[in-house]
């Protein structure tokens, strides 16, 4: 075999090994690397109690309620598998809307509600002008 071909095979083997090792490490990190819990994860694996976590999903339609104090809001986060009621006190980002994505930072209470101290808006991968959006029915749920 020519030396050049030998080097090529060595390089390709090394590349495959490195990428394989990297992907293996990454798949092992699956849970740790997740930025937030989805309601479905919580229903499946139990409440992560006693630690600060993030909860992400869609804000359920017609679920936002404002308390008379003007700063506390209640809403429901869903991912198509489960629903979690959330309480938040503070200023929500502009993009925080019903049927839109949200990531709430806070803590679960033993009764299953989530108390958030910060809200991040999460939009999906669709971009369109306002006129078009008005005509469309948004039926997709946020991918977990």
């Amino acid at each position: 075999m020519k030396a050049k071909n030998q080097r090529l095979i060595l390089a390709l083997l090394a590349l495959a090994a490195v990428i394989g090792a990297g992907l293996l490490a990454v798949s092992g990190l699956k849970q740790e690397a997740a930025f937030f819990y989805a309601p479905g994860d919580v229903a499946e694996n139990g409440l992560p109690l006693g630690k600060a976590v993030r909860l992400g999903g869609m804000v359920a339609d017609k679920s936002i309620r404002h308390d008379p104090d003007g700063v506390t809001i209640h809403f429901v986060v869903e991912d198509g598998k489960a629903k979690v009621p959330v309480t938040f006190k503070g200023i929500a980002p502009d993009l925080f809307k019903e049927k839109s994505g949200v990531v709430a930072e806070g803590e679960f209470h033993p009764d299953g509600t989530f108390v958030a101290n910060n809200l991040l808006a999460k939009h999906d991968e669709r971009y369109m002008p306002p006129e078009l959006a008005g005509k469309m029915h948004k039926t997709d749920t946020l991918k977990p």
Partner: protein
Amino acid sequence: MHAYANPARFLKIARPLTPICLVVGILLILIGSYAGLALTPPDYLQGDSVRILYIHVPAAWLGMGGWTGIAIASIVQLVWRHPLAGVAARAIAVPGALFTAICLVTGSIWGRPTWGTWWEWDGRMTSMLVLLFLYFGYIGLANASDDRTSVSRATAIFGIVGAVNIPIINRSVVWWNSLHQGPSITLRGSTISSEILWPLAPTVIGFSLFFGGIVLMRMRANLAQAKVEARMRRLAAA
């Protein structure tokens, strides 16, 4: 493979190609940016901030494409000992790092009005930051050697090993729950409506040509400097 190995032959093509890449690239960037800032409608949800898309996406593509180029050049250097491979890899590093940084900065600026945060340690953002540090490491390693026309074998191997991060960046939003949204443009099509999407074509092509022009200029600079240094060494020896 070795048809362009001769630097003289490479320069014969690179000299006219450099201004073409730069002029056409800058024109396309300006056209695309104008269209993206003034002609396209705002997004139904994000409003005007969606206009950052037209520079954020090309920057992300060039940051990742740059490292892919370094990895390919490194393989070509190690396997075929092509004399220009090291020059090319070295020339890609600085613009690659620049566009990775632009991607991170524009993403951060975009995140504030839309997500409500400048920075979060989400899978996409973290892996992109790792790419920037890989570029810094590569630039440091490449500059450690005096030979401007190649990179050391260790540097080339680092270029190949670092490529493992590229598929991780690309898939991070699919594998993990992330704040960053999923991919909009896939093989199956685009979830960006055409009225918003179209200026992305001129900016992506324009920034890519501009990137190519910068790489050509940096290759030419290194080849010329190496020529001068070789002459100086011969004069000193004589």
